[in-house]
């Protein structure tokens, strides 16, 4: 159990509503199911939602704030997931205490939970102000998530610039909510457009999937039930790539080219599995 071996990964986007928390929850579950001891740290405590997505909203008693103040033990603040014991949630604080947290506090909390984890995922608040600075101070690497929309890509670019100036490495990209049909019709930024513009290695590609909303309603991340839906498959693949597995990335908008191309792709896939 060496603290240095845990990977502390920031999940950020700049813009709100592009899927940071959903990615954190699903990636957390997926990593836990792959046998990694994982802690998800909700740094967005002004508007916290990670507990909701994980279905743990009724189990939070203590937060990192009490741990730092010494009024509870670390184990008391870590909320273990009911179905996936390898995953724990650490809420950073409660919404009434917005000012207490400093970058050093965040660093202390992240390093504390890192002592008993293989992966620490930090769910970053939107924006590039203090909340982002706090969360970024604690991480060692980062995943930037964006959607193929101009505003999201622009904000992601700004965040990448800030991560670069802080020397955070590696920074990888997850492209969320891709609509293959629209991309094929050139009515949406293509995957290559976004990766060219942001110049980051692509860690994952998530297509628009209604099941994401259903899973949020239930408080059960999609990856809990394996790889039943396209988005769940994508999140699991992100987890596997993060661990260094060579899972090929397939651009769904390029798969619609023609019958022959589709047949060939199908044959190739069936040959692999």
């Amino acid at each position: 159990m060496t603290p240095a071996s845990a990977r502390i990964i920031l999940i950020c986007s700049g813009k709100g509503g592009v899927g940071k928390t959903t990615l954190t929850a699903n990636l957390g579950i997926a990593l836990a199911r792959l046998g990694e001891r994982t802690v998800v740290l909700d740094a967005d405590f002004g508007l916290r939602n990670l507990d909701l997505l994980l279905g743990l909203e009724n189990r939070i008693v203590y937060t990192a704030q009490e741990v730092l103040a010494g009024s509870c033990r670390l184990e008391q603040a870590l909320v273990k997931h009911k179905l996936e014991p390898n995953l724990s949630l650490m809420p950073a604080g409660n919404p009434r205490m917005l000012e207490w947290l400093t970058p050093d506090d965040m660093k202390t909390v992240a390093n504390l939970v890192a002592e008993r984890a293989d992966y620490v995922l930090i769910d970053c608040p939107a924006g590039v102000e203090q909340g982002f600075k706090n969360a970024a101070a604690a991480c060692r690497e980062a995943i930037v998530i964006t959607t193929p929309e101009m505003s999201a890509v622009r904000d992601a670019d700004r965040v990448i610039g800030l991560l670069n100036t802080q020397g955070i490495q590696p920074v990888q990209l997850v492209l969320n909510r891709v609509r293959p049909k629209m991309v094929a019709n050139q009515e949406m930024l293509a995957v290559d457009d976004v990766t060219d513009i942001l110049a980051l290695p692509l860690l994952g590609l998530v297509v628009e999937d209604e099941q994401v909303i259903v899973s949020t309603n239930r408080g059960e991340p999609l990856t809990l039930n394996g790889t039943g839906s396209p988005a769940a498959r994508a999140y699991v693949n992100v987890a596997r790539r993060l661990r260094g597995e060579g899972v090929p990335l397939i651009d769904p908008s390029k798969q619609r080219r023609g019958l022959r191309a589709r047949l060939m792709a199908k044959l190739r896939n069936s040959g692999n599995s």
Partner: protein
Amino acid sequence: MTLIDFMQRLLGREKPSGTLARERLQLVLAHDRSDLNPELLEQMRKEILEVVQKYVEIDLESGDVSLETGDRVTALVANLPIRRARPLVLPGTGGGSVPAPPESGPVAGAGA
């Protein structure tokens, strides 16, 4: 995509919105990354043109100085079609004559 949109595009009248988004993004990111506001950029453009005009006669109408971006690197790209070089006296060798000021440019070569 409606049928009308499709026809427009088929006829080459309208760019697909995805392409438009990419182009607009590249432009706005070039500015974001360089931290230059449009006013400063315009001032720089003017000064660059003045300097260039001291040496060569350029086509101001089709000239263009802009920021371009790719791979997280922003480049200042100047595209200045040269009409002709000005008769130039190199500093040091000359007997006091200076390159023509920009305003008198078109006159200096042809009219005299």
